[in-house]
Each structure stands twice: as structure tokens, then as C-alpha cells.
């Protein structure tokens, strides 16, 4: 296996060729905030929180979806990046209906976490109060669109890990929303195996088990990566 070396925030780090910048950043003992990225799922580079600066380039690179290459000099925490990240998190809060106080994910929410990480003490952008629905048609789970940040983890885990492709995205722009089946009620979609992986990986309180109320959600985002590793490394094959 060939190895490449690069520099992240002044630290030299060596990673296997083919690693992403995000893996290199973590290998260097550093972190950048992420929302859409999840180990085990194909990256989409949609939340823009993991953007980093590459020396010699004007363009910012999404660390999750960019391959690390030899000799790169990466900066992950400049004042410019901090400013952009905070604005991105404010945009997330302002575009949905996020009320942490009574959210099922209060305390375990990744959006709440990144707000802390980027130092967001308030949103400078006015809240939009979009009219969104709750789909409680599934016997065990619910989807509250008010809390959805369109990270598409549910779409990807269902397609790439479970193989059912129950979820997809409909509409465009600020009208985008996650849909089940052919834009049906979730409970009516035969393809759904009720495996709960979408609930496990949802970073917010958008997807949750019905028995959970305020601050009772127990997400398991690590399961996507565990399942993928198990399959690829045939860990459960005798």
C-alpha cells in the first residue's frame, strides 16, 4: 500500500493513498465540523462545513469528498473558514424549524453540536418558518420534516447499505424535501424493511423512533461504518 504525506495545520501526516482529506485531518489528530459526511456512506459534499483551504489554490475543498495528494498543505481553521462555517450553520437553523427545547434529539443532535463548535450564539439570518409536515404513518418511526437538514444520510444508508432505496429527494431549492417511495406516506412504502438504519444515522431529530420523546433519541451513526466494514472485510464470514 502506497503512502502519501501532507501537512495539515502545520502538522505532517502520512495516510494511505486514496484517503480523503477528512481522513488525513483526523489522522493528524485534528477535526473539522461535518454534517452530511458519515463513515460507511459515499460522500456528497453538501453541508460545506468541512471546507478547507489548500495552499496555492483559490478554491476551497470539501475535505470529505476530496482525495488527499502528496505534498498538499491544508489549513482547516482559518478566520475565513470559521466565518463561513458559522454562517452555514446559521443558514441551517434559519431554513428549518429547529426548536431544541422540545426536540427528540436535544442533547444528541449533531446540528446542535456543530452550533457549539462554530460558536453560534444566535442566527444573524431571520428564521424562515417554512410550512413542513410530519409523516407518522410508519408503525415504528416518524419523519419530522421541520428538523430535516437534507444531509441525505437516510437516502444513502437506505440505498448503499440496506439496498432498499426507500428515500430520495423531491423538489428543488428551499422546497427540497426527503420523500419515501414515490412520494408516498412512509408507512405505505412496501420497499421499507423497517430496519431503522435511517433513524440510526439521522444527525438531527428528523427521523426518530415513536417511543422516544424530548431528548430521548439514541442515534447510532457509527452503524453505517460498522456494517460497511463488516461486509468489505467479510468479518462475519466463517
Amino acid at each position: 500500500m502506497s503512502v502519501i504525506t501532507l501537512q495539515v495545520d502545520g502538522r505532517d501526516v502520512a495516510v494511505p493513498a486514496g484517503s480523503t482529506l477528512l481522513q488525513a485531518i483526523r489522522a493528524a489528530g485534528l477535526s473539522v465540523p461535518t454534517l452530511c459526511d458519515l463513515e460507511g456512506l459515499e460522500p456528497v459534499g453538501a453541508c460545506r462545513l468541512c471546507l478547507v483551504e489548500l495552499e496555492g489554490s483559490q478554491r476551497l475543498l470539501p475535505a470529505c469528498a476530496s482525495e488527499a495528494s502528496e505534498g498538499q498543505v491544508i489549513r482547516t481553521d482559518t478566520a475565513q473558514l470559521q466565518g463561513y462555517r458559522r454562517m452555514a450553520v446559521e443558514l441551517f437553523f434559519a431554513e428549518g424549524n429547529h426548536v431544541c427545547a422540545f426536540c427528540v434529539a436535544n442533547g444528541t443532535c449533531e446540528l446542535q453540536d456543530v452550533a457549539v463548535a462554530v460558536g453560534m450564539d444566535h442566527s444573524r439570518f431571520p428564521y424562515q418558518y417554512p410550512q413542513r409536515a410530519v409523516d407518522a404513518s410508519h408503525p415504528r418511526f416518524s419523519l419530522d420534516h421541520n428538523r430535516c437538514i437534507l444531509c441525505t444520510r437516510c437516502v444513502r444508508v437506505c440505498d448503499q447499505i440496506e439496498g432498499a432505496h426507500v428515500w430520495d429527494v423531491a423538489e428543488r431549492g428551499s422546497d427540497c424535501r426527503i420523500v419515501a417511495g414515490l412520494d408516498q406516506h412512509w408507512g405505505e412504502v412496501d420497499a421499507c424493511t423497517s430496519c431503522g438504519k435511517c433513524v440510526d444515522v439521522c444527525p438531527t431529530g428528523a427521523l426518530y423512533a415513536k417511543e422516544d420523546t424530548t431528548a430521548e433519541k439514541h442515534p447510532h451513526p457509527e452503524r453505517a461504518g460498522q456494517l460497511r466494514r463488516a461486509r468489505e472485510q467479510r468479518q462475519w464470514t466463517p
Partner: protein
Amino acid sequence: MIAATPAQDPAQARPRLRLATVWLAGCSGCHMSFLDLDEFLFELAAAVDIVYSPVASDTKIYPEQVDVCLVEGAVANVDNLQLALTLRQRTALVISFGDCAISANVPGLRNLCSAPGRDSARTVLERGYLELADASGQLPFAPGIVPELLPKVLPLHEVIPVDLYLPGCPPSAERIRAAIAPLLVGQRPRIEGSSMLRFG
């Protein structure tokens, strides 16, 4: 920076801080949490003058020359708006105190009830006082007594400039104390990290 500028010599007695707390559209939970400061309340009482507060003062008119004001709640009606404008003029350091002041939070949920051509105030009043009432239902109308609802519930900083934000629903007593204590010695608190910053 707050009006009571720190003295050059720390030993020198500084003027007592004039502290206010204000309750706009909120559940009073932030004030309850404030009361959870327990024994720190004694230290506070020794160090500041509480010049206006729903829980620690009988003053009905917001006074002049306030150093620090903790504002709980969103701006939902004309009284809230008037008080916000007044306190901004008379206060050196305004703190959005809790999630309702910062994001409109739960009171702001009525903003979801607007429909084209009908603001959320009208919609919720009609729902509450006409649609769900018996035949005698009527919209509340008592000018000068019952304050009129604003068309939309707003966070404090969309109405007046805010100097500091202390999130939480409510902010815990520890968080409140960590925010107030530096103010007593003329320093600005650092609102960062999970212990100080988390919503909810």
C-alpha cells in the same frame, strides 16, 4: 463593554452594578433558573442593585442608567416591543437571556400559523377565540389593557441591538452564574464551548 468601567486599582471600590432582568414572551423558565442560583443570589445581592426585575423588584417603570439587563423571552406584542426599545436606550449591556430571546423559540412557533394574507397573530387569535369557542366567541379587544400581538414573533436582536447572547432553554444556573460573575468584576464573559453555548 459595560458602562461601569473597571477601576484601575482592583482594590478600589467600584460602583455597585445596576442590574435589571426583563421578562418578555417566554415561560419565565429562565427567571426560575436565575432563582436556582441559590446561595450565589446572596453574593449577587451584595454586589449589585437589582433595579428592575419580575422576581426581585417591585419597580414598574424601567429605570435609567442600567448597567446590565438580562432579557428573557421573544418580542411578541406591542408591550414587549415598547419595553425592548426602552431598555435598549437605558441600558449599557443587553443580554439575550435564553433561547426565546435568541431565536423566538417556542413563542415563535405561532409564526408557523401564518397564511397568505393573514399574519400569525390574526390566525392564532381566530383559532383560539372563534373557531374553538362556542357561539359567544369574540376576539379580545381592550385597547390599553390587553397588548396587541405583533404580526410576527421576533427574537430580541431583530428589534434592538444585543450585546451578548446566553443560550439555553433555560440556561442552567451554572451557565448564568458563569456569565454574570465576570460582569461583577468588569469583565466580559466568554460564551463559548458546550457548557456556555448549547441551545435547548
